[in-house]
């Protein structure tokens, strides 16, 4: 069924391309990074609504499976393992902290460690003492939930191409996004700069070591980088960077009012949220309204920036499917929480064995969808022509800001 829906879209995109048009949607390509992020945030939301270790473990497994099936060999895609390790560290930390600083509540004693009472200045805390199963298990559940959310975000990191994500920033953040793109492109060239300076030093017969050699290398590299920035600025100027649209004074004033008013609302809402005597309307509703108003102001301010996009990422049916899978997983978990809350938050005392309901399994199935529904990632850049999804800009010459990772400023309206 999904193939048919893809086919409709492919036909709309490229009419009259032969009988097997649907296969165009299955061609290897990089998915819109926003779709991966929505999917991952959906999974993280689902994980945040449960402490059921079975469900959480399933969600981690789903994230890992999708990453394994759909990741590229870009450097950011290989860091998924780091997030798994980080998750393990968080779980361990929680459990260890519970053992060391825990209060020792619970009926089923695991082990009784010798107590070490700390002096008065340390808030009367005692270390170790009796360790109960409930206490350790509570720490494990909480830690597992946090670790699962982290692993979900790690999956988004591994799957979404950050350079293409930077293309999608709103207009108001365009300048900052360009600076980050410049940084990402220049960073690899610093290595080359270091090599060049070292070679020049060797040719001059400088054999200094230690601090002196460090200064002899670091400072020229820094000066090199600074000179490079001037060359880059000249190149950007000559390509029309900095072109802005004329914005009427009234609209500018409205933008400022929206941003300022929204921020005042955010401050008031935060105060209301943290104030025990605050009235209801000053809390979360105020905070959210303020945020929305301020963001609207920011988006309005972005209309001043005029830019054109080179090969923009389109939002096609595969993107919709992937994002929808994440949202469905979150919604199904919340639904399961309203049906059987005690199964989503298995009580630690009395000790119970966690259970999985069909609704939870459905949520996990939805979450796993993108492992098959998303188009396969493009192959390694060396074997394919540089088309969509190839990491670009990493080795581009510094005088070229108009590479595909950047939008060309000004240029063509």
């Amino acid at each position, binding site marked *: 069924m999904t193939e048919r829906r893809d086919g409709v879209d492919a036909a709309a995109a490229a009419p009259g391309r032969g009988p097997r048009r649907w296969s165009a949607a299955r061609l290897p390509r990089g998915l819109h990074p926003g779709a991966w992020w929505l999917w991952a945030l959906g999974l993280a939301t689902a994980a945040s609504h449960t402490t059921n270790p079975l469900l959480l473990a399933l969600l981690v497994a789903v994230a890992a499976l999708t990453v394994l099936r759909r990741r590229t060999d870009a450097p950011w895609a290989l860091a998924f393992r780091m997030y798994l390790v980080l998750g393990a560290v968080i779980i361990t930390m929680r459990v260890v902290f*519970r053992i060391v600083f825990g209060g020792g509540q619970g009926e089923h004693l695991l082990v009784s460690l010798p107590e070490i009472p700390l002096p008065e200045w340390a808030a009367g805390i005692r270390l170790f003492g009796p360790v109960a199963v409930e206490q350790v298990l509570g720490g494990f559940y909480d830690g597992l939930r946090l670790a699962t959310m982290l692993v979900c*975000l790690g999956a988004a990191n591994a799957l979404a191409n*950050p350079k293409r994500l930077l293309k999608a920033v709103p207009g108001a953040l365009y300048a900052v996004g360009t600076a980050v793109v410049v940084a990402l492109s220049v960073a690899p060239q610093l290595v080359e700069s270091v090599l060049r300076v070292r070679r020049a030093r060797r040719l001059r017969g400088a054999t200094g070591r230690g601090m002196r050699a460090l200064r002899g290398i670091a400072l*020229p590299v820094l000066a090199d980088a600074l000179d*490079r920035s*001037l060359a880059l600025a*000249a190149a950007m100027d000559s390509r029309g960077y900095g072109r802005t649209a004329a914005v009427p004074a009234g609209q500018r004033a409205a933008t400022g009012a929206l941003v300022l008013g929204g921020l005042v609302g955010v401050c008031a809402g935060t105060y209301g949220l943290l104030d025990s005597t605050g009235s209801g309307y000053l809390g979360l509703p105020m905070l959210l309204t303020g945020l929305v108003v301020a963001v609207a102001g920011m988006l309005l301010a972005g209309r001043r920036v005029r830019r054109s996009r080179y090969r923009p990422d389109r939002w096609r049916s595969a993107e919709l499917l992937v994002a929808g899978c994440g949202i469905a997983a979150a919604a199904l978990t919340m639904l399961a929480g309203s049906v059987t809350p005690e199964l989503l938050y298995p009580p630690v005392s009395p000790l119970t064995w966690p259970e999985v309901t069909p609704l939870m399994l459905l949520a996990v199935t939805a979450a796993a969808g993108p492992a098959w529904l998303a188009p396969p990632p493009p192959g390694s850049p060396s074997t394919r022509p540089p088309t969509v999804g190839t990491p670009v800009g990493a080795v581009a010459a510094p005088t070229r800001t108009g590479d595909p990772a950047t939008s060309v400023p000004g240029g063509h309206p």
Partner: protein
Amino acid sequence: MSVLRVAPRTAVVLALASAAALATFTWPFFIPAHPESTARTGEAPLVFLVMLPVLVALVLAELSSGGIDSKALAMLGVLAAVNAALRPLGAGTAGIETVFFLLVLAGRVFGPGFGFLLGSTSLFASALLTAGVGPWLPFQMLCASWVGLGAGLLPTRLRGRAEVAVLAGYGAFAAYGYGLLMNLWFWPFSLGADTQLSYVAGAPVLDNLHRFAVFTAVTSTFGWDTGRAITTAVAVLLAGPAVLAALRRAARRAAFDAPVTFAAPAPQPAPSTATPPPETPVAAPQDVPGPAVGVAPPARRWLHEAPVTAGEDGQGGGSHQAPQRPAD
């Protein structure tokens, strides 16, 4: 000198957003015990987790709303790249932190607005390069931005040894402050709700402060934070004078504060963009080797082995501006 002009409206936005953002760090001290439906212990952190990235984006958009000069933007990107390349050098080695050193110096030279942007872009680029994007990233970005902002707000008159000493002291202070704020952010997440070191919702502020002080002392202050402070201060003392000279030289060459004037239409086709005319007084220091700003250099210069003119420049600057040894 300030590369990025901070308009009054921007300053107000920055102050408001910083105030709200501070609450996303310090909420465990203030959160009430019996809140209405929303601020359950489980949900308040999530609200703040969502709120902070939006606040950071707002401030960044506001700071760049006046349009960033292309030279400032290129400088921002290049310095962020250097910072991002420096960061992995220290990570994982007992608190050695190499980010703040250049951040403080650049904030000092290029002004508070630039320092704020540099803090954010550095950590963001570094996170993208090493795939460290996570919920902690906006908090790190904001803290680093505050560090850069503060460096730009230090008294401008200081020069020479006094300047380096003040910057080193500020670097150490900022390193401790950064560690403290990041600990504060991580405190509720690392401990959960019911250990003796966790925050207690509704308890007096001093009581929670006491617990936090013990937590941060136990976990990081004497190891990581001290290591970070020492690294930053020593790096500023040793390399500060030379790096400051290099940055100031670049700022002079770029002629950020040269007024942009459009000449009357000349017979030959005029340049289309707002590059400052080469004869502006600030744009012509003695040590500009080649043509002034606005002239594109040979594009292939960085791709091939080239004579190391830049290297010699830097070395020359380094040798006649030899950094003073620290007093001890």
